[in-house]
């Protein structure tokens, strides 16, 4: 059969990492224009897409090449000039491939921002230089911090409309730096741009010689993300058991899944949770052959030395530093449904490959995303609100704190009547 590498390794691909970016900005911040500019100046816009933008800009009477039209995909969005939902954009340079989760900024779509942020390596926040740091900017910074996006880039946009004034830029940097100090953001950068004209997007701006940093694209190409991964805590949620029972593979039993964190090697001693049985990794299989290490985010199949009863929802971990096997969770949740969260309500919970049911025992507080203050005594959480809850689950979940592990620290809640995903949850503590 063609394509099977005989040495057991995937054929080396072009060097280059994948960087996942979440963008957020208000309707008028020029976010779509910025993304259009990134795609356009990095020559990712193809001629038929450009023709479409030219024709539509003319028809709408925009009076300029409206690059926002590149990203607004649905009929209602083009008609109303808004962005409804998370849209995904792709572009690459010789250094990296980029996936942009483009989310609208208005308040009613916080849930989309959280969605885009959940998988992001880097958060791109836009601030209108004329308006300064507003509620939405603070909300975006807060969500980036809550979702533990390791890198935050603040683009101060529309610098052309404030005369490319350094003092305006510095005032915004100071104000947001103060706010960010109360959050938990590892790496924050500020870039003054004018997306409409392309200043400091791909090319360095000729108008802002006082800015000593790199243009946005250079920053995106060079930000170091490899150390953001958790290579310390071995966590392998079992997804699927491969048991062919064919003549050729009669006794084969492999546990397929994606490495959530840590590094697994043949010969490693491991524990299967929740049973607590110990064994060793006999081998790590891929379609192309055995490999000598599995690390995030590889999808592999583990063979274990002992015949144990292991099934989907179990987790294979290292014995020295296991996750907490918990039935009570303290968590931050972002509420995503029009039907509010109520204390005492029951939901389905999905955590790694394990599903159970959960009761909201207590709503501790609601976070005011503008002031970061905790409002106690609220009976529920409404759509787009964020709060801290205590959950009790019908079966043990193997969890880590989200700030330590974005895979084993995250979960979703599902309304069992409507089947809607109603909350994104991040574990703060567990018993």
């Amino acid at each position: 059969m063609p394509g099977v590498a005989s040495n057991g390794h995937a054929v080396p691909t072009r060097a280059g990492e994948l960087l996942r970016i979440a963008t957020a900005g208000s309707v008028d911040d020029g976010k779509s224009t910025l993304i259009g500019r990134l795609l356009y100046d990095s020559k990712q816009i193809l001629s038929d897409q450009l023709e479409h933008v030219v024709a539509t800009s003319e028809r709408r009477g925009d009076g300029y090449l409206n690059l926002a039209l590149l990203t607004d995909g649905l009929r209602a969005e083009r008609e109303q000039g808004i962005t409804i939902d998370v849209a995904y954009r792709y572009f690459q340079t010789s250094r990296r491939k980029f996936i942009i989760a483009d989310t609208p900024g208005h308040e009613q779509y916080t849930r989309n921002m959280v969605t885009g942020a959940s998988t992001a390596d880097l958060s791109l926040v836009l601030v209108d230089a004329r308006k300064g740091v507003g509620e939405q900017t603070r909300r975006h910074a807060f969500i980036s911090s809550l979702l533990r996006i390791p890198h935050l880039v603040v683009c101060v946009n529309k610098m052309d409309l404030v005369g490319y004034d350094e003092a305006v830029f510095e005032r915004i940097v100071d104000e947001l730096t103060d706010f960010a100090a109360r959050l938990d953001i590892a790496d924050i950068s500020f870039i003054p741009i004018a997306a409409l004209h392309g200043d400091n997007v791909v090319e360095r701006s000729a108008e802002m010689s006082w800015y000593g940093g790199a243009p946005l694209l250079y920053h995106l190409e060079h930000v170091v993300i490899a150390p953001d991964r958790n290579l310390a805590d071995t966590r392998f949620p079992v997804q699927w058991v491969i048991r062919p029972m064919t003549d050729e593979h009669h006794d084969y039993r492999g546990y397929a899944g994606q490495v959530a964190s840590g590094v697994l090697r043949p010969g490693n001693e491991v524990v299967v949770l929740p049973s607590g049985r110990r064994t060793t990794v006999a081998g790590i299989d891929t379609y192309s052959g055995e490999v000598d290490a599995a690390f995030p985010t590889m999808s592999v199949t583990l063979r274990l030395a002992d015949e144990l009863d292991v099934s989907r929802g179990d987790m294979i971990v290292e014995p020295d530093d296991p996750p907490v096997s918990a039935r009570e969770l303290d968590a931050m949740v972002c509420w995503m449904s029009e039907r509010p969260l109520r204390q005492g309500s029951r939901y389905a919970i999905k955590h790694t490959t394990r599903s159970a049911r959960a009761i909201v025992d207590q709503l501790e507080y609601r976070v005011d995303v503008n002031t970061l203050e905790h409002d106690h005594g609220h009976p529920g959480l409404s759509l787009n609100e964020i709060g801290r809850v205590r959950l009790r689950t019908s079966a043990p979940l193997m969890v880590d704190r989200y700030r330590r592990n974005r895979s084993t620290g995250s979960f979703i809640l599902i309304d069992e009547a409507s089947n809607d995903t109603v909350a994104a949850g991040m574990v703060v503590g567990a018993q």
Partner: protein
Amino acid sequence: MNPLHYELSHLETLEAESIHIFREVAAEFERPVLLFSGGKDSIVLLRLAEKAFRPGRFPFLIMHVDTGHNFPEVLEFRDRLVEQIGERLIVASVQDTIDSGRVVEETGPRASRNRLQTTTLLDAIAEHGFDAAFGGARRDEERARAKERVFSFRDDFGQWEPKRQRPELWSLYNGRIRQGEHVRVFPLSNWTELDVWQYIAEEQLEVPPIYFAHDRQVFERDGMLYAISPHVELIDGEAPFEASVRYRTVGDMTCTGAVRSSAGTLADVVSEIAATRVTERGETRADDRVTEAAMEDRKREGYF
């Protein structure tokens, strides 16, 4: 893969994500099906399914919705590939849907069975009780697709409602549905056309010969080159001529245009795609040109 630094290339990262999606669906649905067209994206899907489930069998059937207007080279390729990998294929036929009176065929020189496929597909999903259908759609293909989830929920009319999509967080997919509803699953959501071709080149996957430059009798319509075939009527002024062409997408002979090309190998194709200035759908698909929101409208009706 760089085992010293525990780093994956971007294709390895995409591959791992797609395999994860395949296994989630296998574990959480009763009767999934893989929609296979014989095109490059569905060829990659099959390889990813092999990577997800070997040495086991696929825990689902493969289904082709055959319009009756497919390229013969593609059908021949389809049968050979399915036999090679030892899996089970079923074919849902648009001709049968027409014969049974469920749909009425368009007439005239621009007639296409593209839209009719939706009825055949939804009928087959209902008939077999499929609750999840893997498709090869990618978000980079088209603006409406850029907004679609990996798990794309369809109501019991097969409809997509863009404003009521479920939020998709981390890699936690919500596959809960009611009787009669189903989910379209797109494991290649985050792949681009170039990623697909790079992957095909790396994995040395076989693709139908029409993807490579060949001499073919074609005619020009609306700035695109179409194959001369029994399914297409020429309009006044259109004249057949021979050209060296290849296909960037595989659809019906009636609505899939060819591009002039001399790319004879996978490496040539990768270079051509890396340098191209036109999107694959813009260049080769008449079905997307009908209105500005052609894809969005068809998706709402239950199209792939």
